[in-house]
């Protein structure tokens, strides 16, 4: 098992939609160790982290990067657009309401890992009409 991470910027503001996801490949079950996010536009925003209700199809996913360059390439990837959109999680592991201030954010850690099943997605979900710009990063053990 090795540690991988990636950070992307999302401009998806739509309430009731995913701003970003991390998706496992069909042959791995990564452990999500950390998720961080912060706002790039001064809009009060509410986010949740939860498992997608369906199996979305990512558009132009970006693979996580190895934190040790000697480790093999990551199998998991993140995306901010989908051809088959994610559906709402039935339950959120974490929720946060952020004030309308650029730079506010949160870092969630999962010391034992939040396990993602093969081909499944973990979502950063818009629980309101959110900031026009949000940075988020994902750290995974796969």
């Amino acid at each position, binding site marked *: 098992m090795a*540690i991988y*991470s*990636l*950070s*992307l*910027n999302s401009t998806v503001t739509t309430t009731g939609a995913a701003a970003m996801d991390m998706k496992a490949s069909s042959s791995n079950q990564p452990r999500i160790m950390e998720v*961080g996010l*912060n*706002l*790039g536009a001064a809009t009060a925003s509410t986010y949740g982290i939860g498992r997608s209700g369906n199996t979305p199809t990512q558009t132009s996913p*970006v693979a996580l*990067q190895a*934190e*040790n*360059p*000697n480790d093999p390439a990551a199998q998991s990837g993140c995306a901010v657009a989908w051809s088959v959109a994610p559906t709402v999680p039935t339950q959120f592991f974490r929720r946060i309401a952020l004030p309308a*201030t*650029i*730079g*506010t*954010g949160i870092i969630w850690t999962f010391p034992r890992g939040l396990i993602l099943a093969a081909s499944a997605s973990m979502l950063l979900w818009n629980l309101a009409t959110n900031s026009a*710009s949000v*940075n988020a*990063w994902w750290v995974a053990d796969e």
Partner: protein
Amino acid sequence: MALYGGSIFQARGGTFNTSTVAADLKAGPYNATSVFEIGVFCGSGIQSSVALARATAELLQLYPSYLAAYENGDTYSSTALAQAWSVTPVFPTSHLRRTFLTGAQGVGIIWSFPRGLKLSPSNSVVLALPSSGQNQIGQYHMSAEVDE
């Protein structure tokens, strides 16, 4: 293996250009380094967007600032911080971490890597300034802790 730490301060009149590299942390030529912590804090009230990424090529540092040992008696560090290079670094497009910093002196972030972010010999991790519609830092403090 021993722990080393260091920091640099950069001040520029006005703002940095976007899509540029502001600083790097480079491993020495003969040893790999594990980065355990990187901190970035604003020294002036300019809102900014910053990212942490691996350099796309070896960077030739000018005036490197070598890290200091946490314990007296440990050998000198070969890992160094720098904010100028003989060849301008290429802006990396894939980032390990990104954050926005609001326009207030003292705001910042500390990223930690419990298992270590590994740098191969002569490789760098850079503080990059993405073009995200934000003004860039006029002054900043950057710190690092490594095990080499």
